[in-house]
């Protein structure tokens, strides 16, 4: 599904999958050695159990399934589309507006942070563990907060200046395409088939 959603941009998700797997390894690797049960193999004083290996496999497959689903969602939509989708599914407009403006604001703040960092470097600042360095970081953070407040006031005025009254409307109305229908039926058929198979094999 991830392949279909991000096709042909594999470069986008491959490094992300790598980091997700690296994160999961923290849980997967020690679990067989920490779970008591029937010993499968020994490595020095460490004994790996069959129950532990099963649990590791379960954590890995579930973790990977959840992460790839999230990646498919993020990789195939813009943040704005996600917010609008959430709004369409019933998330209150105010929360959607806060989320979207917050995201936009973070982008502006990161640009400002980069500018300030360059300005600090231009004046010979090098980060270290001295009290002076911490003071500089504190001042920088305070400055960022003040600027953020200032900017949010300006953005608030700009929104009011364009007649905003609390609800984010959009120019285009989203329309359901054949891909959404396909995805919906695939999601309906695949799990039901798996359940049916499980039931049939169980009997």
């Amino acid at each position: 599904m991830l392949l279909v959603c991000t096709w042909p941009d594999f470069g986008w998700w491959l490094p992300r999958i790598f980091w997700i797997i690296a994160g999961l390894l923290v849980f997967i690797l020690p679990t067989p050695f920490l779970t008591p049960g029937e010993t499968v193999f020994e490595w020095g004083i460490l004994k790996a159990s069959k129950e532990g290996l099963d649990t590791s496999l379960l954590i890995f497959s579930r973790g990977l399934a959840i992460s790839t689903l999230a990646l498919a969602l993020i990789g195939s939509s813009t943040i704005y589309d996600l917010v609008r989708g959430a709004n369409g599914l019933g998330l209150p407009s105010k929360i959607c507006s806060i989320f979207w403006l917050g995201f936009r604001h973070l982008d502006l703040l990161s640009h400002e942070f980069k500018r300030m960092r360059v300005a600090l470097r231009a004046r010979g600042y090098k980060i270290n563990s001295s009290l002076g360095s911490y003071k500089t970081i504190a001042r920088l953070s305070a400055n960022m907060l003040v600027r953020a407040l200032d900017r949010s006031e300006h953005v608030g005025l700009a929104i009011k200046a364009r007649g905003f009254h609390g609800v984010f409307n959009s120019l285009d109305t989203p329309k359901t395409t054949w891909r959404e229908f396909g995805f919906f039926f695939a999601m309906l058929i695949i799990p039901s088939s798996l359940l049916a198979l499980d039931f049939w094999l169980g009997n």
Partner: protein
Amino acid sequence: MINPIINIQELSHAYADGTKSIHHINLQINPGESIAIIGPNGAGKTSLFLCIAGLVSFRASTFNISGINALEGNNKALLPSKAALLFQDSDDQLFCPTVEEDIAFGPINQGLSKAEVKQRVEIALEEVGLIEKRNKVPHQLSGGEKRRVALAGLLAMNPDILLLDEPSQFLDHRSRRSLINILNENSHTKLIATHDFEMALETCTRAILLDQGKILADGPVKTILADESLLKNHGMEVPYSLKPHI
């Protein structure tokens, strides 16, 4: 006799901490006029614009903007549709995911139908020459393009008055020229707060000098901007093109 599009008497404004930014200003502007608002930093130019756009609280004995008496009932809320404000920093003004969506933001809030909104967006994009950028992300555009998108956002609201706060600030020569051309082709009533006196000479017929919240001079732009002692007294200089050359 022409009815002024802006008729303000005894306008005063103060910030939340009590600092007064505008003191008893009287202002009359006729439809179609293009006026440069000049003055040093902190003179009250932006505050005046925020008042005219109905975005801050103020006191006045008369406050008529494009036929609306803002002192009556809830009329102040109607002012943003009549007097559209271009902010100093375009990043404050652009927050939608695409150029098209951003320009449509104002007209949608005005309650127009989608067909009307799309038509307005089309006209505004054409007016600022950004048709090909309609699907771009606004904050990834150049400074000049951002300014033009912000201006298109105002034009799409079809206001009677344009309030432009330092429109040429941070623009390169080409973007500045493009903005001047757009402004000269536009027939709206325009108030342009600027330190760019050469641009004021090209786009405005009248100039108002504001300092410490008071109007100190009002007249033809060439007369005001050529008055060396007046400008010097308020920390400004005669533009190069008006200086006598040997």
